[in-house]
């Protein structure tokens, strides 16, 4: 009797605490102020350029705090806020999680194909002494920025070919006229790599000089020490607000965000451990366990690398022109063991060419036909049989190029090589230095074997850039005119649901044709100290663009002091 009462009392007490806890969490009021020290996903790389006209892939990462774009991720749909998207993808936004950043609403019309965008009103450029006065963003700025990108000598040929012209038909109205539809229209100029809106005054003063940059974003670039740090300071007149528990807060919360550039892994892990970094976004699986032991207070998130790993086989050379040989090599590698023993379980067997985060495009291995599932099942006997059938009963040898810059690959390739040797196939490993390695691929002079990893980018690009004839990231030299046509058709398809069906079919086809030895994809970890709030591991709100995410983060300074840091 007493026990029951006692237990009941305990239970209600616990429940009460839990309720209070959640109530506490719900009511956690964001604090303004403080500095966030971040080791970003690209912690080892310093800013390559601040000028969009340089057409540099990393630009958004460094300028995304001050230069804004037409569209960005709708972070209210993140998992943290009860939505279903984690926002890990480096260059993909789900189509139902896009929100207008500088654009307020946009409408399509046909004959001719046009997109009319209404910009937000009252978005101000802060004053920048010597460069520009405080003024409002207008449609002219968008037109100027687009034309500046198009006319840059460093631009990627064909990137904006689908756009006929851009014009400002009103103070806040921009009209894009298209020659034809391109499924990646919003990726190309919207929220993608090359979508930055730069004002004319900055371009006139010299957009390459970081001291001149000025944008409408939540932060301004207050300091840049190349090879060491980027410092972003709060923009006091930033336009965006965030609603938390019914209260509207002006963004950003933080006074400063500092990117730390640290080349050495041991050093940046140490910096996190001693709270010199509040947040480290890129932690290798091999370091995560240790860090959890030495620093148990850290909070963690885990994401699947946005990059597929594989050994590409040149299908235009013998013996890889025979699909039996390619399938045999896939079956000869014990991929499950690689996941279990090499990665300690921190990897996924099947995550390329489509990434599991691409909801609506990704089909898991179980849903694949037997011909694909077979490739992921360890079967050295069948491999040897296929090789014999193809005319190589004693196996053969081939050269594999690998980048000596990637320590993971330098360990993984010998492991793969050991499996292949068991079926009589010998690898001649040729390590190459980074630029030489990439050059071999771009000049299409790479060896019959080419061991690399390749970013997914987004569901459409991942197929196009690696499996369409003569594309840059096609080291296997895969070339099938019928396939190319299907990809081109896919790009012209306006209906997303139909596109998804096409992409799934294309993915299955290429998996079956297997120009690569598909390998598991590792997980990567992100860790942060508990005083970093308003965050749950989100990484990008646009193509490699974390700006809006940092704008919504805040630091609990009391907690930080309490923890003695």
């Amino acid at each position, binding site marked *: 009797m007493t026990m029951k009462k006692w237990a009941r009392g305990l239970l209600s007490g616990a429940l009460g605490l839990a309720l209070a806890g959640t109530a506490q969490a719900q009511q956690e009021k964001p604090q303004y102020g403080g500095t966030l020290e971040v080791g970003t996903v690209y912690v080892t790389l310093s800013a390559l350029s601040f000028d969009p006209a340089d057409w540099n892939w990393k630009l958004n990462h460094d300028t995304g705090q001050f230069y804004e774009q037409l569209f960005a991720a709708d972070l209210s749909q993140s998992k943290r806020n009860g939505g279903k998207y984690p926002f890990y993808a480096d260059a993909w936004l789900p189509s139902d999680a896009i929100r207008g950043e500088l654009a307020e609403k946009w409408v399509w019309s046909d004959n001719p194909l046009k997109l009319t965008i209404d910009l937000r009103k009252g978005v101000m450029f802060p004053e920048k002494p010597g460069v520009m006065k405080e003024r409002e963003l207008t449609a002219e700025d968008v037109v100027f920025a687009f034309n500046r990108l198009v006319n840059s000598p460093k631009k*990627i040929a*064909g990137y904006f070919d689908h756009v006929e012209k851009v014009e400002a038909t009103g103070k806040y109205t921009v009209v894009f006229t298209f020659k034809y539809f391109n499924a990646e229209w919003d990726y190309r100029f919207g929220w993608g790599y090359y979508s930055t809106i730069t004002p004319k005054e900055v371009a006139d003063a010299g957009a390459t000089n970081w001291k001149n940059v000025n944008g409408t974003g939540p932060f301004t670039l207050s300091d840049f020490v190349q090879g060491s740090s980027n410092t972003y300071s709060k923009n006091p007149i930033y336009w965006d607000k965030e609603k938390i528990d019914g209260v509207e807060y002006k963004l950003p919360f933080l006074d400063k965000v500092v990117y730390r550039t640290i080349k050495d892994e041991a050093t940046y892990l140490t910096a996190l451990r001693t709270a010199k970094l509040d947040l480290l976004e890129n932690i290798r699986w091999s370091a995560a366990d240790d860090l959890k032991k030495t620093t148990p207070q850290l909070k963690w998130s885990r994401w699947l690398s946005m990059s597929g790993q594989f050994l590409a086989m040149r299908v235009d050379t013998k013996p890889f022109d025979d699909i039996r040989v390619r399938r045999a090599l896939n079956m000869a590698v014990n991929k499950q063991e690689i996941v279990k023993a090499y990665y300690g379980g921190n990897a996924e067997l099947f995550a390329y060419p489509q990434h599991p985060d691409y909801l609506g495009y990704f089909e898991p291995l179980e849903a694949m036909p037997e011909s694909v599932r077979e490739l992921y099942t360890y079967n050295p006997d069948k491999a040897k049989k296929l090789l014999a059938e193809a005319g190589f009963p004693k196996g053969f040898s081939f050269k594999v190029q690998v980048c000596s810059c990637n320590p993971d690959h330098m360990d993984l390739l010998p492991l793969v090589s050991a499996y292949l040797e068991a079926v009589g196939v010998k690898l001649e490993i040729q390590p190459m230095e980074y630029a030489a390695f990439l050059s071999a691929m771009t000049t299409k002079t790479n060896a019959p074997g080419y061991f690399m990893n390749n970013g997914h980018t987004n569901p459409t690009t991942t197929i196009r850039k690696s499996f369409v004839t003569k594309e840059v990231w096609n080291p296997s030299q895969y070339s099938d005119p019928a396939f190319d046509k299907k990809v081109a058709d896919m790009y012209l398809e306006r209906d997303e649901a139909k596109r998804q069906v096409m992409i799934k079919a294309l993915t299955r086809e290429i998996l079956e044709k297997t120009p690569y030895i598909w390998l598991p994809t590792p997980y990567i970890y992100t860790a942060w100290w508990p005083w970093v709030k308003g965050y749950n591991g989100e990484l990008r709100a646009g193509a490699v663009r974390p700006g809006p995410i940092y704008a919504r983060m805040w630091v609990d300074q009391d907690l930080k002091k309490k923890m003695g840091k």
Partner: protein
Amino acid sequence: MQAYIVRRVLALIPTLFFASLIVFVTVRMIPGDVIDLMLSQNDIGASKMGREQLEQALGLDQPMWLQYGRWVGAILFQGDFGRSLWQNTPVSEQLLQRLPVTFELGLMALIVGLSVAIPIGVYSAIRQDTPGDYVARSFSILMLAVPSFWLGTMVMVFPSIWWGWSPPIQFVPFSKDPWGNLSQMIIPSIILGCALSAITMRLTRTMMLEVLRQDFIRTAWAKGLGERLVVARHALRNALIPVVTLIGLQAPLLIGGAVIMEQIFVIPGMGLLLLDAVSQRDYPVITGVFLIVGVAVMVINLIVDLSYGLLDPKVRYR
């Protein structure tokens, strides 16, 4: 004396010219050129037109001799080292930012090295072949035998696990915050300095041994002077002369070579600049770094040679 200086400076010029030409050409021969690297960033294949367009934008489509001529001319007449191919910012800006950092690290390492080497060397010489001598010499060589990157890693990682402390990694220029700047540089300069000290210690020791056997020292002993006076006043000065030359020999390491320390302790110096530039094939930066480093070292060597003459009255310059 002046004639000597002038002759040395004049002799520098053909050397620099020759060296810069070699570097200029070699760097462009590295497999994997910058155009390929830039184009590989894209996910759309580049047509031939794209390549040519990029080459033209970067000024790489012109014949080699013309590029070299332009480069030399720009340096001599405008002090313009060109622009980085990736950042499009002036190379001279980057060099100006990084050179003082490396110089400071080198200078501190030198001071540490000398402060460690000379006392140990002198002690070893005075107490030759005693256990003290062996211990001192062993310590010095041990500093040399442990790879600097390993020592640096241990200093960075283990205190963070044991005491929750790690060396500062935030770079602030000396002018803005001298204390913050020094606190970042002190540990890597100690590691670097100790590694360098082995060689200087050896030299100091042998020089002291030789000098201590000389007649004038024996005279000093006979006069009844105390050990400290004999060593400090008479022996040390003569023994240190070749040590000064050694500083000149170590200058290259100090100016350009502390890459490993820079990487571990997050110091934005010339070494990392070069490493990044080479992996990105940023030709103007690479050639700029080489040139500056070469000039700096030659100037240091000249100063060292001149001071050698000042220290040792027996040396005269023809």
